[in-house]
């Protein structure tokens, strides 16, 4: 009887119902605080908002590339035969995963970036975000590699492949299919986490919204579009992640 509830064909309807329900809830809440809406003054800063949105996309994309590189290198180091490689990979992932991103941003920006004379906030932001996400990605990559049956590696070895060839032709092509769905999720996190970079003054979406708010004193009119902006970026991605996951489950 509840079969239609689970039928993916009705997904748009479900979403609509969900949105309607939440809207009613929000309206009731706002009415109780008697909020006066004033979107006119916020509207004139729309260019700033769009600039922030573009910066957020840019930050997330650049960080995606760099963090994937960090993650890949760390995962390979973690699998290395040489102990110092393994140890540093473990220390890196554990340090990153057990401290808050905000703390890392503050420490790395005011400490390390200052020390090496890195002034560009965008570049500093990308590097910090990538260091953060790289630790998580390395675990995703590691799980992807370890999910490959041992005999596949043994087959490659018995055919006379070098370690490099084994990674290039056997391990990575197979791991990518395992890795893709969780990586999409990681990209969503990157987009959201980039909002914290406003603390060091990177001109991204959250920073823009904060500035618009300080110009117009219209808090909700600034922050509501902010939430919608992030949603517009992440929602399509989570649909993609959903589809990838399904495709994985039903085999290739």
């Amino acid at each position: 009887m509840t079969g239609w509830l689970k039928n993916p064909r009705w997904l748009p309807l479900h979403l609509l119902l969900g949105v309607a329900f939440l809207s009613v809830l929000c309206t009731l809440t706002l009415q109780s605080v008697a909020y006066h809406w004033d979107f006119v003054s916020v509207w004139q800063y729309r260019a700033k908002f769009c600039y922030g949105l573009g910066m957020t996309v840019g930050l997330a994309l650049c960080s995606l590339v760099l963090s994937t590189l960090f993650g890949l290198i760390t995962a390979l180091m973690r699998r290395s035969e040489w102990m110092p490689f393994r140890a540093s990979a473990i220390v890196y992932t554990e340090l990153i995963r057990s401290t808050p991103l905000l703390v890392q941003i503050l420490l790395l920006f005011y400490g390390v970036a200052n020390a090496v004379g890195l002034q560009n906030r965008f570049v500093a932001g990308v590097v910090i975000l990538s260091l953060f996400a790289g630790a998580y990605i390395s675990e995703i990559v590691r799980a992807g590699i370890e999910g490959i049956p041992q005999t596949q590696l043994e087959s490659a070895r018995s055919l006379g492949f070098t370690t490099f060839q084994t990674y290039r032709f056997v391990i990575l092509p197979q791991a990518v299919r395992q890795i893709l769905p969780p990586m999409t999720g990681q990209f969503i996190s990157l987009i959201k986490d980039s909002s914290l970079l406003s603390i060091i003054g990177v001109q991204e979406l959250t920073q823009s919204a904060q500035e618009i708010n300080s110009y117009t004193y219209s808090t909700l009119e600034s922050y509501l579009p902010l939430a919608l902006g992030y949603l517009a970026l992440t929602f399509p991605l989570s649909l993609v992640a959903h589809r990838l996951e399904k495709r994985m489950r039903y085999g290739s």
Partner: protein
Amino acid sequence: MDLEIRKLCLALGGKDILREMQLPKISADILALIGPSGGGKSTLLRVWGGLLAPDEGEVLLDGEPLPYSEKELRAYRRRMGMVFQNWNLFHHLTALENLLLPLTQVHGLGLAEAKTRALGYLDRFQLADHAQKHPHELSGGQQQRVAIVRALSIEPRCLLLDEPTSALDPEMAAQVLEMVEEVAEQGTPVILVTHHLAFASRISDTTLFLAEGNITEHGPTREFFDRPRTKTCQRFLETVMRI
């Protein structure tokens, strides 16, 4: 091919698998390795395949001792055709691509040449129809047959088979064994680890019986199956042949 083993010792994960294994020089075309599980059959096969370097002792193939260093072993492995129990084929590649990859990347063949050779081998074993299929589109038996073809296509010194049929149902196993027989008849030396004793006794000319990390008995297959000399072999054959 000539085989010889001198005081071969090998431990894996702190456990002695092969213990001072000895084998005087023997000549065999089709060699069967049989014996109880955990006796060291697969480990010995991996040593011959160049996948495991011995801790001590020497293994000789056609009078040449096997190398120890990883680099030399890799070169040695390129000339050995190895097939495992399952998951031999690379999942993300079609049957044909599975054959092409080692030919082009390891043996330095041009793509056109590799393709001609690969298709020729697939055709020879009635697998040409499956060339464009991925492993998950093939039955377990077909996967194993393609794996054997891949091992043959590199024109190896000998074919090493590690229980190639133990993950298959009887019908598919029969097809794979038929193919092994064909390969053997065409003159490629074969070393085979198997639990199919009837098959082993039919196609092999020499048999090694391994138990507890040692070669308990070795000799011409017919003699071995007709008149096993040691108690362990007698008991093993009695138990296994009963079912």
